[in-house]
């Protein structure tokens, strides 16, 4: 079993177009959720989101690329460039055969579906652009990353709704740990802030019209976000030999299925995933200083998640910190675990715990230290990142401080 470290990170999300800007927003407890700027917004009952503003695709891609890249692919490429640059890795030589890419997305090219359905149904056109399929397919981002960085090993996309990124990063972790590969680009991306993407979510009636307030008694639902985060997972010896900076060590991963309900979460399923990640990483529960919560801001998730944490950690649940950064960047659905891993790295590396903003009233059913509203300085050695998806699919990663 090889040790696995993170040697690069990149992102774009509602808070910033890079990692330093995102971490600064986490430290400041800044909210990236705004009024949406999208076509036909007036026909939506939900009009806010964690939208990426000031996005100028032409600054990053040429015209031929833009024709092929849905926004979720564009976001992924931008994040990957930042991550690979930071890692200092070069995949030109033999490493290319020992490197791959595993990404999470729930919807893939949702904007491309949306725009082209409009063209054929609403506008009555009988012809669409020849690249619609290669643009919208869920694996488009993974494939474009493999091409841009010359990654010739395993490459695929995982779709497990809101747990997609964590499942993807778990697979990348397993591949490096087992020795199957030396380095993996991994993380996830989502871009469904378009009329059809939001309309679908409205139907479930779990969305907030004003803010995402995880764990707060007056919370009234989730808020969608968009963006991507990509990491370089690398074999520890490989990274050490080349003197790479190690942002964190990935030490454990577990996934479980509730096998019970298509939308309602299960305490047991969530608890088994957290306990499994601890076991996999040979960690004691009391080593965990921080949990980046799934924390969607819905009634159902937050109380179930807190009850699961209490079950797994017992008395230690009252000593650890747990926060949801979805309050700041929104719920990136299939990309959310990736952006949230940045808060885990910040906790381990910088000793700063990202807050749960928008917190107004304690909920007796969420009586944990949720780091309300203001970031906190604290030295932590081990952190967990939770993701619990519709469909009852849970995926939890455990990370450890490297220095």
């Amino acid at each position, binding site marked *: 079993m090889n040790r696995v470290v993170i040697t690069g990170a990149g992102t774009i999300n509602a808070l910033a177009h890079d990692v330093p800007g995102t971490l600064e927003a986490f430290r400041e407890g800044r909210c990236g959720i705004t009024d949406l700027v999208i076509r036909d917004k007036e026909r939506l009952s939900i009009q806010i989101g964690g939208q990426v503003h000031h996005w100028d695709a032409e600054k990053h891609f040429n015209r031929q690329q833009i024709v092929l890249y849905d926004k979720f692919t564009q976001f992924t490429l931008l994040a990957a460039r930042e991550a690979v640059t930071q890692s200092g890795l070069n995949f030109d030589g033999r490493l290319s055969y020992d490197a791959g890419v595993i990404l999470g997305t729930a919807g893939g090219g949702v904007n491309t579906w949306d725009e082209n359905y409009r063209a054929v149904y609403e506008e009555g056109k009988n012809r669409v652009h020849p690249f619609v399929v290669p643009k919208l397919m869920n694996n488009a981002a993974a494939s474009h990353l493999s091409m841009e960085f010359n990654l010739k090993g395993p490459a695929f996309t995982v779709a497990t709704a809101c747990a997609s990124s964590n499942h993807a990063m778990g697979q990348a972790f397993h591949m490096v740990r087992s020795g199957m590969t030396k380095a993996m680009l991994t993380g996830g991306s989502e871009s469904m802030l378009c009329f059809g993407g939001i309309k679908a979510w409205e139907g479930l*009636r779990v969305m907030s019209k004003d803010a995402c307030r995880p764990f707060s008694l007056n*919370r009234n639902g989730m808020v969608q976000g968009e963006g991507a985060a990509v990491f370089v997972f690398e074999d520890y010896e490989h990274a050490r030999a080349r003197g790479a900076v190690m942002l964190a060590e990935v030490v454990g991963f577990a996934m479980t299925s509730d096998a019970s309900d*298509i939308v*309602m979460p299960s305490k047991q399923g969530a608890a088994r995933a957290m306990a499994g990640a601890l076991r996999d990483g040979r960690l004691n529960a009391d080593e965990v200083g921080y949990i980046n919560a799934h924390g969607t801001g*819905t*009634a159902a998730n937050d109380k179930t998640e807190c009850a699961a944490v209490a079950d797994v950690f017992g008395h230690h649940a009252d000593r650890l910190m747990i926060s949801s950064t979805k309050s700041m960047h929104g719920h990136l659905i299939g990309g959310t675990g990736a952006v949230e891993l940045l808060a885990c790295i910040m906790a381990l590396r910088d000793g700063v715990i990202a807050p749960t903003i928008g917190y107004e009233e304690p909920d007796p059913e969420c009586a944990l230290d949720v780091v309300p509203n203001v970031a906190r300085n604290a030295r932590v050695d081990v952190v967990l990142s939770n993701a619990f998806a519709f469909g009852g699919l849970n995926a939890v990663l455990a990370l450890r401080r490297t220095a």
Partner: protein
Amino acid sequence: MAQDVKDRVMAIIAEQAVLDVEDVKLDSTLEDLGIDSLGLVESIFAIEEAFDISVPFNANDPGDNDFDISSVASIIAAVEGLVAAKPA
């Protein structure tokens, strides 16, 4: 009109509960009828479609909505209100 709203709402609820309409009573709660959270959201959607109205309902806090779902009678009353308030 009032009778019509009542009958149609009761039919929607009965269908969701997989019961005969006669088994849906005015004082029944959704819990009595075995309608869970997804069933409730589906019933509200069916009501909105049937009457062409928009029901103010957030599933995060079913008890704290303007739309009273505490019994079949309260749902009928709420729907009647929304139908009456509908622009002609």
